């Protein structure tokens, strides 16, 4: 286990390094300079570029970039959006709201998905199952940003229930109500995914022999499902939750823009458009890191949740 962990961790660092390098090259090879402001004189642009080493050959720049990170943990400063603020400060300020939105969606999705999945499995091939399957297909297919538009129009604009965009200046209560629609928009997909997985697992488990045994010794179907099949089905479902979180995180890139939430998501677009190089690289790195960490956690959790699964063996799919 220890060796396997070490190997996976090493692979993860290597991948992150590859992403960092690729990101740096791509962003530095883009035409244009972050200081292409018509208000700046040519002299000023040149001075600014020299200050940030932008006039040097790209390999030298890359050397400085890596050296700063390795020796001082210094990732550079934001150039345009929030001039001279260290990039991690810019990002760090926005992480809480992004995490709030994402965790809330997962928190809503878990019980609802489990409830719907169990219900569908209990009434398999009867009308509740059909209705839930239909909704599942609907929620899985319709992208979160389309859901966001529909919610914004019907709940926010027509019914006037919730504020259309996030109000960062409002009181705690106002901010919470303005999070309702973004959280909802992000929840539909995970709800449907959890529901579909759980229904499938439960359906398989309900045909297992131990269910017949349980019913033979006098448990009702419902009791047997909740005492036996349910527990066994939850194990595989737990494994999709961590990847679902990455999905929600990616979704919130767009959702944050739609609802004007000042999170990390909106930062990516804005920094790309403003040619805020170091910020773009760091945001890309941030997302890649979260993605890789969640993949690692998922793989490890397979073994932790169900010790029958041996880690490190041929993981061919």
């Amino acid at each position: 286990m220890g060796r396997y962990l070490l190997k996976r961790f090493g692979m993860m660092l290597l991948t992150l390094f590859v992403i960092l390098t690729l990101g740096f090259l791509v962003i530095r090879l883009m035409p244009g300079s972050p200081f292409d402001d018509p208000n700046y004189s040519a002299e000023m642009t040149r001075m600014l570029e020299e200050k940030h080493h932008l006039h040097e050959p790209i390999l030298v720049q890359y050397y400085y970039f890596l050296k700063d990170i390795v020796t001082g943990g210094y990732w550079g400063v934001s150039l345009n959006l929030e001039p001279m603020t260290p990039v991690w400060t810019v990002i760090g300020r926005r992480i809480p709201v992004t995490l709030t939105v994402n965790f809330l969606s997962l928190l809503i999705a878990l019980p609802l998905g489990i409830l719907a999945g169990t219900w569908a499995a209990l009434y398999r091939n009867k009308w509740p199952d059909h209705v839930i399957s239909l909704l599942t297909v609907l929620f899985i297919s319709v992208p979160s940003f389309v859901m966001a538009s529909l919610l914004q129009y019907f709940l926010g604009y027509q019914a006037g229930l919730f504020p259309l965009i996030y109000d960062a200046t409002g009181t705690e209560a106002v901010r919470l109500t303005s999070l309702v629609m973004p959280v909802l928009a992000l929840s539909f997909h995970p709800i449907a995914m959890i529901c579909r997985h759980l229904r499938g697992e439960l359906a398989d488990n309900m045909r297992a022999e131990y269910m017949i045994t349980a019913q033979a010794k006098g448990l009702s179907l419902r009791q047997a499902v909740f005492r036996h099949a349910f527990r066994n089905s939850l194990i595989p479902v737990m494994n999709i939750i961590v990847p679902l979180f990455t999905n929600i995180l990616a979704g919130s890139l767009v959702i944050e823009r739609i609802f004007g939430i000042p999170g990390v998501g909106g930062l990516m677009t804005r920094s790309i458009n403003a040619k805020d190089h170091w910020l773009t690289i760091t945001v890309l790195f941030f997302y890649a890191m979260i993605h890789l960490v969640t993949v690692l956690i998922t793989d490890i959790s397979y073994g932790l949740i169900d010790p029958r699964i041996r880690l490190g063996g041929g993981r061919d799919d």
Partner: protein
Amino acid sequence: MIKRFWHNKAAAAAFFVLAFLILMAVFAPSFTPYSYREQVKNADGEILSNMPPKIPALRFLGIAQGTAVLEDRQTAFLDDPARYPEGCILEVRNRRVTERGTEYCDVLVDYYKYMKAEEGTAFWFGTDQLGRDIWTRLWRGTRVSLVIALFAVAIDMVIGVSWGAVCGYYGGKTDLIGMRVCEVIHAIPNVILCTMFILLLGRGIGTMILALAVRNWVETARLARAQFLRYKEREFVVSARAMGVRDRRLIFRHILPNAMGPLIISATLAVPGAIFMESFLSFIGLGIPAPEPSVGTMLSDAQSMLQTYPHQVLLPAVVIALLMIAFHLLSNGLRDAFDPKEEDSEE
């Protein structure tokens, strides 16, 4: 198998919805008097922006008549033909007098007359902020999105299947190296890879297609490899090889046709994935460049005007949703038709 597919009502319905959308995407843009990029102007040279929908054929239903309500207008100016061209006022509502004694009202106008649009002008879905016909743009956008998705999936299939076939068929060192490459590419998150790809090559339809295919082929390769591993030791392959059939022929003529089922299903599932990703990238500002529309760019451009012109947001939203649902149902139907054991809902 085909019979089983049609037996599945949802899949059949999805097929027809999809057929309708594709037909519209192919033909509708050619049969409108407006172009997708031209800004329509009135006789005075003013751009007809944000016109409401007007569909003359639906007159009797009372919807989409090209009317709009102008709020808080001073009643005193209602007779001024310079502000309100003749015959454009349909109804004056909600007359009220403010404390200063000025009378205000809301006016229901025929917006086409109000904007002095030429006689006979009718934008079925209205125009966007830049005065371009939304009906034309919507279907052209659907076409562009579909083309991008289909090409991306086609590239993904060609590379993925050949890669997976070679890895699976030859095995050994080839397999090891091939799969390692896949692992490395797979480790980079999709959004990040697409973003970097588009930043590097610049925004455009071609870049978009490549960006969507650049990581997805890995999944296809894995699936194809698994399929080849399954079939390569089967009797019919071994006997063909014993008869001296060459590797290439074995791969393409003997194994591939048998291995195709799951690959086709995965391809139909990859299409909505590509449509989703294209819209998603439009939202982060990496979509295809203007003036070419795609449903994704139309949705993301109109997003900020939801309150004033909801139809501009809802129309592309509905088209995206329909496309995604239809492709998903279609691939579910295909999966069940290929392999009826998978789903237990068969009575």
